[in-house]
Structure formats: structure tokens, C-alpha cells
């Protein structure tokens, strides 16, 4: 029974037993279709955010350059590394669930969660420093965009941590059915979206 279930998952997720491991079949949509509709919607919303920031940069370049210089670059770089590394662990967790499901599967998700928690802590530290220095969203347009857009992103991270907790719980099951694999893939897709959006936000707020 158990062997049959594992085979079912492997047949649906893998090209063949002889293929390199952790490779899903061609034309495979990871997770549920609903998560991809959410990804598409979120990408469109954040596209508008990116254009608003760029327009602000274009029309108030002096103010944006001066305001950006007050940001702590290392905080942004560190947060980028936390999310990239978190995404890496989550991607490894999905591969582990799909192929060699065992104890390591849920540990990868736990490490991904740890990276997310470090991101939230670092972001809170950064915001705390800014607010204690008297810098708020009302200071100027740059900080209005900075607090609002990174704040919306931070909400995504917090929701993503909850989603990863669900994925970790599913990955602890002794046997993973095809439906469980789709749940784990959906959670991972959402987490990678968070990473992807941060990459652009980091570049626009900290590097330009």
C-alpha cells in the first residue's frame, strides 16, 4: 500500500526512474492552478508599485538620492541573502518531498522558516532605527513609498511563514500523496514569489 502510494507520486512528478533526481515532468505546473492566478495578480500589483517608485525617482532624483543614502545598505543586503537562502532551502525541501522523502524534508522547510524570521527581525530593526530617528512615511515621498511598499511586502513574508509552517507539517507525514506534493509546491511557489518581489524592491530602494 505504502509503496504503491509513493510510486503514484513519483510517476506523476518524475519523468522516469532513470532521469536525474528531483526533476518534475515536462509541462508540469507546480502546485495548484489557483496559486499561479495569485502569482499573476500579485506580479501585476507590484509592477504598478515598481513603476510608481521609478516615476518618483525620475521626477525627484535629488530627494530620492539623498533619502536613499540614509538607508543602511547592509540591512538590505542581509535581508536579500536571508530570502535567497530561504528560497534555496524551500526548493530543496520540495525536491526532497518529491524524491527522497524522509527526515530531511521538514528540516529544509524549518530552515526556510528560520530565514524568513530573520528577515522579519532585521526589517523590524531597520524600521525601528528609522522611526526612532524621526523618519516616518510622512517625511517625504521616498520614505512614503519605502514604508508602504516594503510594509506590504512584509505582510507577504508573515503570511508566507504561515504557509511554510503548513508545508512543513505536510512534509512530516510518513507518506506523501500527489495532493500533499501539490500543497508543498503551492507553498513553495508563494515563498519564491516573495523572494522575487524583494529582489526588485531591494534594487529600487537601496541600489538606485
Amino acid at each position, binding site marked *: 500500500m505504502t509503496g504503491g502510494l509513493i510510486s503514484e507520486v513519483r510517476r506523476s512528478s518524475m519523468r522516469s526512474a532513470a532521469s536525474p533526481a*528531483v526533476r518534475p515532468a515536462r509541462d508540469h505546473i507546480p502546485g495548484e492552478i489557483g496559486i499561479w492566478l495569485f502569482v*499573476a495578480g500579485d506580479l501585476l500589483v507590484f509592477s504598478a508599485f515598481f513603476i510608481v517608485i521609478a516615476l518618483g525617482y525620475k521626477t525627484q532624483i535629488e530627494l530620492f538620492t539623498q533619502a536613499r543614502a540614509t538607508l543602511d545598505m547592509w540591512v538590505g543586503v542581509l535581508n536579500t541573502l536571508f530570502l535567497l537562502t530561504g528560497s534555496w532551502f524551500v526548493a530543496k525541501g520540495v525536491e526532497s518531498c518529491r524524491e527522497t522523502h524522509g527526515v530531511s524534508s521538514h528540516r529544509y522547510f524549518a530552515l526556510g522558516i528560520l530565514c524568513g524570521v530573520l528577515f522579519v527581525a532585521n526589517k523590524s530593526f531597520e524600521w525601528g532605527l528609522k522611526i526612532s530617528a524621526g523618519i516616518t512615511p510622512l517625511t517625504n515621498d521616498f520614505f512614503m513609498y519605502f514604508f508602504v511598499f516594503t510594509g506590504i511586502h512584509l505582510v507577504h513574508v508573515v503570511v508566507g511563514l504561515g504557509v511554510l509552517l503548513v508545508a512543513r507539517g505536510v512534509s512530516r507525514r510518513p507518506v506523501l500523496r500527489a495532493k500533499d506534493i501539490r500543497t508543498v509546491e503551492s507553498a513553495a511557489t508563494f515563498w519564491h*514569489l516573495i523572494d522575487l518581489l524583494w529582489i526588485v524592491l531591494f534594487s529600487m530602494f537601496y541600489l538606485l
Partner: protein
Amino acid sequence: MTEARETGFLRQGTNIAWLLLVGSTLFGWWLGHVVHSADEYVRIATAGVLVTAFVKTWIVGFQFMELRHAPWWLRHAFHAWVLVMCVVLLILCV
């Protein structure tokens, strides 16, 4: 199955993607310093920051989100988003 598993850190796509992403983050960081320190190369460095960012988003989508194995319409929709957003932001910022 175990014997079919790719071994070696650099033989697994997710590991290579992570190394590329970390490397390009450090490269983007350096370009950011150029943007704010040298007038002569500001436009090139600004373009470099944006192109590096969208190359990173493509790596995340292609490797981590597994779009490399997705149906062509989903893969190309993502490619279109990366390309269009990169061009729009280059026009606005450079």
C-alpha cells in the same frame, strides 16, 4: 532511485541557482556603489543594477519556481513579465 540522484553540490540546479543569486546580489551591491560615487558611469551602473535585478528574478522563476518544466504559455508569460518590467524601468530610470 538513490543511485540516480545527482551528487555533488555544483551538479544540482538549485545549488547553482543559489550561488548565482548570491553572486549577482554582491555584484548589484557593487554597482549600487558606482551609481552613487562616479558621475561618469552612473547611467551604465543604473542600467546594470536593474538588469542584474531582473536576471535574478528570472533565475528565481526558472529554477526555484520550476518554470523550466512548466507549459510553454506559463513559461513565456513569466519571460514577458521579466522583459517588459525591465524595459519599462530602464526607460524610466536611466
